[in-house]
């Protein structure tokens, strides 16, 4: 039997040792594994859960049964907090409304009379009690922050409501010390403001829960158990126990537990949740499968290659979580502003009071208090601070839903500014799985021998074109080769049967001074059809051509059109000869082609475009094209399968389609738009709200805001920001899917 416990209070690796030593001594425990990072202990044996928890608690640590604990815990905390805020809101609101009605209908005798003073004093004390119950945390936090030379949102509310209460109590005790027109108490205002702050907080929790839905959905994809094959038996085990190299069984309709490679059987797998590809992928022997995706049709066995925190899904979750907390450069200004915001508001509030004192009407005291209090209450640093992070959170989540992982806020902002997109041909526009289309031997060679020699040459190479030739020669036996040498951008050289052999493009043949004769015309014809001809030369003699073609992905054309439709200049980049490249470009609707580009020249080509004034997005694979991806303003890595954390890529596309690029750009645009709306809204709100609260409109139209209205506006402003960001959840990038 296995028991998994989640541990609390463990803060160092030495605690792990202590827990392990103690647990192993508990009766019935066979083995203990404590995972420090995860804060869990996995115990095998017959011991009861209670005895294990008791043993851990005896050491001074906490433990409870593991039960998808994190997520549920977090949700429960959220639920508890939501309801607490709601209770605090209701109580403060009821108190505030009653006080308001009492003074509105003059139920309480005049404050200048002794019974009036007495009644208001009692009401003031009740108010204080309610304020402490409903808003005690605000005062506590404000005080703590004050001790750290720090002012927050809570500081503003605490000073605002605190001043209102103190002034009201003063009026109650010494009504004749203030001018007749200022003989007014503000107990109800203090309570209603606190009520509204709590309501705003509660609404924000609700709205915020939705912003992290994308990440919760990803976490939810992780299966809990796996069926492992051990000693010829199939056993159900916890996902945490799966180890690299285990052979696992997946039946139709089940989730694939971890990443791996199919070792027996075949199936169709729905990978939409990871790659965004809507059509199930065919998986045969040797193909990669991704943990968290759903097996549709067949039952198969696979060997686990990545488990635990190394799986693609775990890495995606990690990447998205990291990315969600980054900021686009546009939001950096906010960081500067927010550091000075609260003290600045306090200064404005004092200045407001002074201006009313010096220039206000005769009964200035009431105005001083109301205006300066309203300034404190209406100011909302939260709306400003939330503007960017909350939209980024939703936007990054949305992108992940479409299989595009955006590394950080900077990439997100850059993606909206691109003017040109460079697409690598092989593997990006085309499938990257070339097939042999033509075998043309010269005079005294036959097709099989030509293929046999070419395939033998390629047996040392990892080039995708080479793989196509090896696959085509599957029925032929390969010859041993010596002195293998890959010449980037040209081809390969090696020795077969002690003869020097070259296999590659025209450039290679020219370099080696090999006469091609009428093979050149043959090759030209093939190139016109979009195929890549390669020459084989033995002993300085050209002996034939093998042509390989890489089929274009079905959706490349429509995706490229989407990119062109949003005004991007789309350029194709390839190491192929100009002729072949042009044919492919024509088929997908690209006008600009950079052909015959050596791998090391790719980043120089990107740089040249940048010098022309373009902001360049480069799309290619994360390995060969890494320098070009890094050089570009935004590097999109495509087709890297389960390799998620690609250093050089700003955007990793889990799917294999160029539509991912269009999705990423569209989602970035929508997110940046949303951030701008939020920022403008928040600046506008504060920039307009604070002067109005200070009474700037009073001399003209006699308008002075009530502090309660300010409280409502403040509570609404941050909720509005969160709600606006939530609109992004319904954004659809268009195109396919």
């Amino acid at each position, binding site marked *: 039997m296995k028991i998994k416990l989640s541990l609390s209070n463990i803060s160092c690796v030495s605690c792990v040792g202590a827990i392990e030593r103690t647990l192993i001594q508990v009766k019935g425990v066979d083995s203990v594994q404590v995972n420090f990072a995860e804060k869990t202990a996995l115990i095998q044996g017959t011991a009861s859960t209670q005895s294990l928890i008791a043993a851990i608690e005896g050491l001074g640590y906490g433990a409870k049964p593991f039960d998808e604990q994190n997520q549920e815990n977090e949700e429960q905390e959220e639920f508890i907090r939501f309801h607490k805020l709601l209770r605090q809101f209701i109580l403060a609101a009821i108190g505030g409304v009653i006080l308001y009605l009492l003074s509105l209908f003059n139920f309480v005798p005049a404050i200048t009379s002794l019974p009036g003073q007495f009644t208001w004093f009692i009401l003031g004390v009740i108010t204080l009690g309610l304020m402490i119950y409903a808003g005690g945390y605000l005062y506590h936090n404000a005080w703590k922050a004050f001790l750290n030379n720090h002012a927050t949102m*809570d500081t503003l509310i605490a000073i605002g409501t605190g001043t209102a209460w103190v002034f009201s109590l003063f009026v109650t005790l010494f009504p004749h010390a203030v001018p007749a027109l200022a003989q007014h108490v503000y107990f109800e205002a203090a309570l209603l403001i606190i009520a509204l702050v709590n309501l705003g907080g509660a609404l924000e929790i609700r709205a915020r829960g939705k912003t992290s839905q994308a990440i919760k959905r990803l976490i939810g994809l992780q299966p809990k158990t796996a069926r492992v094959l051990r000693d010829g038996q199939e056993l159900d085990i916890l996902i945490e126990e799966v180890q690299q190299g285990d052979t696992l069984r997946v039946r139709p309709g089940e989730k694939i537990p971890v990443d791996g490679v199919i070792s027996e059987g075949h199936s169709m797998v729905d990978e939409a949740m990871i790659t965004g590809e809507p059509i199930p992928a065919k998986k045969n022997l040797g193909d990669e499968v991704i943990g968290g995706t759903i097996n549709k049709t067949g039952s198969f066995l696979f060997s686990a290659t990545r488990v635990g925190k190394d799986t693609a899904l775990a890495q995606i979750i990690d990447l998205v979580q990291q990315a969600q907390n980054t900021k686009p450069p546009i939001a950096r200004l906010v960081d500067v502003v927010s550091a000075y915001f609260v003290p600045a508001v306090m200064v404005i509030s004092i200045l407001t009071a002074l201006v009313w004192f010096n220039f206000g009407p005769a009964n200035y005291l009431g105005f001083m208090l109301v205006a300066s209090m309203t300034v404190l209450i209406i100011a909302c640093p939260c709306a400003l601070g939330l503007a960017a992070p909350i939209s980024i959170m939703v936007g990054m989540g949305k992108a992940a839903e479409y299989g595009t992982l955006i590394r950080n806020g900077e990439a997100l902002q850059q993606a909206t500014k691109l003017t040109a997109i460079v697409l690598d041909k092989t593997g990006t526009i085309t499938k990257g799985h070339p097939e042999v289309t033509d075998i043309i031997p010269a005079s005294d060679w036959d097709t099989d021998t030509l293929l046999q020699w070419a395939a033998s040459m390629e047996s040392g190479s990892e080039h995708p074109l080479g793989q196509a030739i090896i696959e085509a020669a599957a029925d032929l036996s390969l010859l041993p080769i010596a002195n293998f040498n890959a010449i980037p951008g040209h081809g390969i050289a090696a020795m077969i049967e002690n003869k020097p052999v070259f296999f590659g493009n025209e450039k290679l043949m020219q370099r080696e001074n090999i006469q091609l004769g009428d093979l050149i015309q043959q090759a030209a014809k093939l190139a016109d059809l979009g195929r890549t001809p390669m020459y084989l030369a033995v002993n300085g003699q050209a002996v034939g051509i093998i042509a390989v073609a890489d089929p274009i992905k079905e959706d490349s054309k429509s995706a490229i059109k989407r990119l062109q439709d949003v005004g991007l200049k789309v350029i194709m980049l390839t190491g192929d000869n100009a002729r072949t490249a042009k044919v492919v470009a024509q088929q997908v609707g690209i006008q600009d082609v950079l052909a015959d580009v050596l791998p090391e020249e790719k980043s120089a080509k990107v740089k040249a475009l940048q010098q022309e004034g373009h902001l360049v997005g480069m799309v290619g694979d994360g390995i060969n094209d890494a320098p070009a991806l890094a050089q570009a303003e935004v590097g999109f890595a495509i087709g890297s399968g389960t390799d998620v954390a690609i250093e050089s890529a700003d955007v990793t596309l889990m799917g294999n389609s160029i539509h991912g690029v269009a999705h990423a750009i569209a989602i970035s645009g929508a997110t940046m738009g949303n951030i701008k709306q939020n920022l403008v809204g928040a600046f506008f709100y504060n920039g307009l709200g604070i002067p109005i609260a200070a009474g700037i409109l009073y001399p003209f139209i006699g308008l002075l805001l009530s502090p309660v209205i300010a409280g409502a506006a403040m509570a609404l402003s941050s909720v509005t920001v969160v709600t606006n960001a939530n609109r992004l959840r319904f954004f659809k990038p268009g195109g396919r899917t």
Partner: protein
Amino acid sequence: MITTITVNVSGIVLIGLVVWWFLIKKPKATSMQNDSIEIKVRDGVYDPPVIQATKGEQLHLRFLREDTSPCSEVVVFHGLDVSAELPVGTVHEITLTIDEPGEYEFTCQMGMYRGKLIVA
């Protein structure tokens, strides 16, 4: 007349105090013990808020979040590209190595919780 002067002067003094206390005066920095420190996320602040650290050393910042408010759930280290979600009630350790001396702020997403690493 005296009232006018008193009120205006007190107002200006108050403004001076606000600026001095919140913008000029720096809270005392706490030194790390063996490059390790526990930072409580409690009552709306990071405690301790200002931490003295050594450059080039691996720093272990052990965050213990006690506040449940949504603002406190993420800590972002500016200029270091590091951020973390903090679970409530369990210590979450962030390991950092900073080679460049300087002041590095860490805040919640909204910038209300504020702390600073002074690396020398």
